[in-house]
C-alpha cells in the first residue's frame, strides 16, 4: 500500500515535468474554446441549433477533446515506453508489481482529463456565459464513462503496439476520427442525420450526445450511456488480454 502510494507520488511528479502533454490535455481544449468564443457570430443564438449558440455546443467538444488528448494522444507512448525501455522489467524484480506503475499513469491521465473538463466548463461559464449542465448527475456520469472509454482505448493502443513508434502511429490514426466523432470540426448535433447515427455508435459521438442532453437539463439517453459502457468494457478486456509486459 505504502509502496503503491510512493509509485503514485513519483509518477505524479514525473507527469508534472512533461509540459507537452500537460498543455494538450489541460490547456489546449480551453484555449480552443476561448478562440471560438471570441468570434462574435458564435455567440449569437442560432435557431438552427434550437436557439443555442455555437459556443454552447463547443463546451462539451472541449471536454471530449481533453479526454482524447489524455487517453489516446498522451498515454499510449508513456505505457509502451515503460515497457520498451525495461522499466517494467526492472520493477518486476522488486516486491512491487509493475502494474502499479501503469495504474498510476492511467489514474493521472484520467485526473488531468477531468481537471481539464472542469476548466473548460469554468471558462465557458465565466467568459461566455455558457450555462452549467442542467442535469449535473447525468453530466458527471456521462463524463466518467467518456473518460473510462478514452483511457481504455488508449490502453488498448498501448497493448497492441510493440514499440513507442507504433503506438504513436496507431494513436494518431485513431486520434483524428475520434476528434471528428467528438464534434471538433462539426458538432455532432448539427451533423446530417445518417452521419450522426453512425457517429453516435462511437464512444465519443455517444459521449457528445449524452453531454449535450445533460447540459440541456435532460437525463442523458440510456442508449448513449450504454454504448460508452460497452466500449469501455470491450476495450478494457482487449487491453488486459493483449498487453505484454516485455
Amino acid at each position, binding site marked *: 500500500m*505504502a*509502496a503503491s502510494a*510512493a*509509485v503514485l507520488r*513519483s509518477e505524479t*511528479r*514525473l507527469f508534472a*515535468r*512533461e509540459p507537452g502533454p500537460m498543455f494538450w490535455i489541460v490547456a489546449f481544449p480551453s484555449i480552443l474554446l476561448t478562440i471560438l468564443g471570441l468570434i462574435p457570430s458564435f455567440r449569437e443564438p442560432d435557431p438552427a441549433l434550437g436557439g443555442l449558440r455555437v459556443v454552447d455546443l463547443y463546451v462539451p467538444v472541449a471536454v471530449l477533446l481533453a479526454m482524447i488528448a489524455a487517453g489516446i494522444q498522451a498515454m499510449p507512448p508513456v505505457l509502451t515506453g*515503460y515497457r520498451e*525501455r*525495461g*522499466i517494467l*522489467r*526492472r520493477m*518486476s*524484480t*522488486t*516486491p*512491487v508489481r509493475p502494474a502499479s506503475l501503469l495504474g498510476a499513469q492511467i489514474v493521472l491521465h484520467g485526473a488531468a482529463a477531468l481537471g481539464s473538463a472542469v476548466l473548460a466548463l469554468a471558462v465557458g461559464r465565466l467568459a461566455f456565459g455558457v450555462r452549467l449542465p442542467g442535469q449535473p448527475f447525468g453530466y458527471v456520469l456521462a463524463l466518467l464513462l467518456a473518460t473510462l472509454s478514452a483511457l481504455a482505448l488508449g490502453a488498448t493502443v498501448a497493448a497492441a503496439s510493440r514499440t513507442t513508434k507504433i503506438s504513436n502511429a496507431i494513436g494518431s490514426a485513431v486520434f483524428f476520427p475520434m476528434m471528428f466523432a467528438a464534434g471538433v470540426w462539426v458538432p455532432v448535433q448539427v451533423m446530417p442525420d445518417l452521419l450522426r447515427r453512425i457517429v453516435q455508435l462511437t464512444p465519443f459521438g455517444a459521449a457528445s450526445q449524452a453531454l449535450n442532453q445533460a447540459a440541456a437539463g435532460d437525463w442523458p439517453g440510456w442508449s448513449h450511456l450504454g454504448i460508452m459502457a460497452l466500449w469501455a468494457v470491450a476495450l478494457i478486456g482487449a487491453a488486459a488480454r493483449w498487453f505484454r509486459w516485455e
Partner: protein
Amino acid sequence: MAIIEVNGLRKAYGGRPVVDGVSFAVEEGEIFGILGPNGAGKTTTVECVEGLRVPDGGTVRVAGLDPVADHERVTPLLGAQLQESELQAKLTVREALELYSAFYPRPADWRPLAERLGLDGVLTTRFGKLSGGQRQRLFIALALIGDPRVVVLDELTTGLDPRGRRDTWKLIEDVRDSGVTVLLVTHFMEEAQHLCDRVAVIHAGRVAALDTPQGLIGRAASSTVISLTPSRPLDDADLAALPAVASLERKDGRLVINGTDETVDAVISLLARHRVTAHRLRVADATLDDAFLDLTAVLEEKEA
C-alpha cells in the same frame, strides 16, 4: 545449504534451446560467477533465477522458494541488476533511490550506499542526463537497496572506466563479506578471476566446467607462460624438443612459450646447457582468459 539451486534448467525461444540442462548450486556467502561467450545462455539462466522467465523444464530455488510461483516471497530477498533496463528519464537519482527504498520491507539506508557508489554528487541529476557509468552505479545501488540476501548482477562493470571497475569490485567484496551471496554474470575474465569464489562456464546452454578460477586455470592445457629475450638465438630443434608446450611465439627476438611447470624446468636447463643468458625472464601463471579460450576451443572442436 545452497541458497540458489538450479537443477536441469531448460528454456527455449521459438523452439531453439537457449538453456539446455543447466545445473549448479550457489552456497550462502560466496561470489559465484557465470562465464561464457555471447549467446551462451547466461542471461536467460539468471533471468530464471530472478523469476523474470518461466523455465520450460527443471527447477530453480532461491532460499528454497520458487522465483516464479513464490515471486512475492523471493523479491524481498533478491536484488537484481539487469543487463538492459532504464528508469524514467526525468526521475532524479535521489527520487529513484527513495522510490525503490519504499518498495522493500526493510530497506538499507540509501545515503551511505549512494556515497559509496560515488552518486552523492549527482543526486539531483535526472536519469536521462546520467553517463553510462553513473547509470550502471545507480543500478548497482538499486540492486542493494532492499538489503537483500542474494544479489544477481548481470554484466556488472560494463560501461565503467578502469577506476570505477576497481571500486565496484571492492564494493562487491564488501557486500559478500557482509554475508550477502552474489551471483555474477560476466564476460570479463579478469573480473571473474579477481572476484569469484567459484565459476560456472556456460557454453551453448550447458555448464561446460564448474570450479574455482585457480582450478579452471590449472586444468587448462597450458597453465604457465614463460617469456624471455635470449642473448643469442636458440636452436629450433632444441625448442621443438621442449616438453608440454601448448604454443610458442617469436616476436622481435622475444620468445613466449605457453606450457606447464615441466616446460619451465626444461627451458631453464636448455639455457644453462647452451650458456645463453635470458634477458627479462618472466614466468607467469596463465590467466582465466587463457583457460577459458582453451576450454571453449576444445568444446567447439568436439562439436565440429
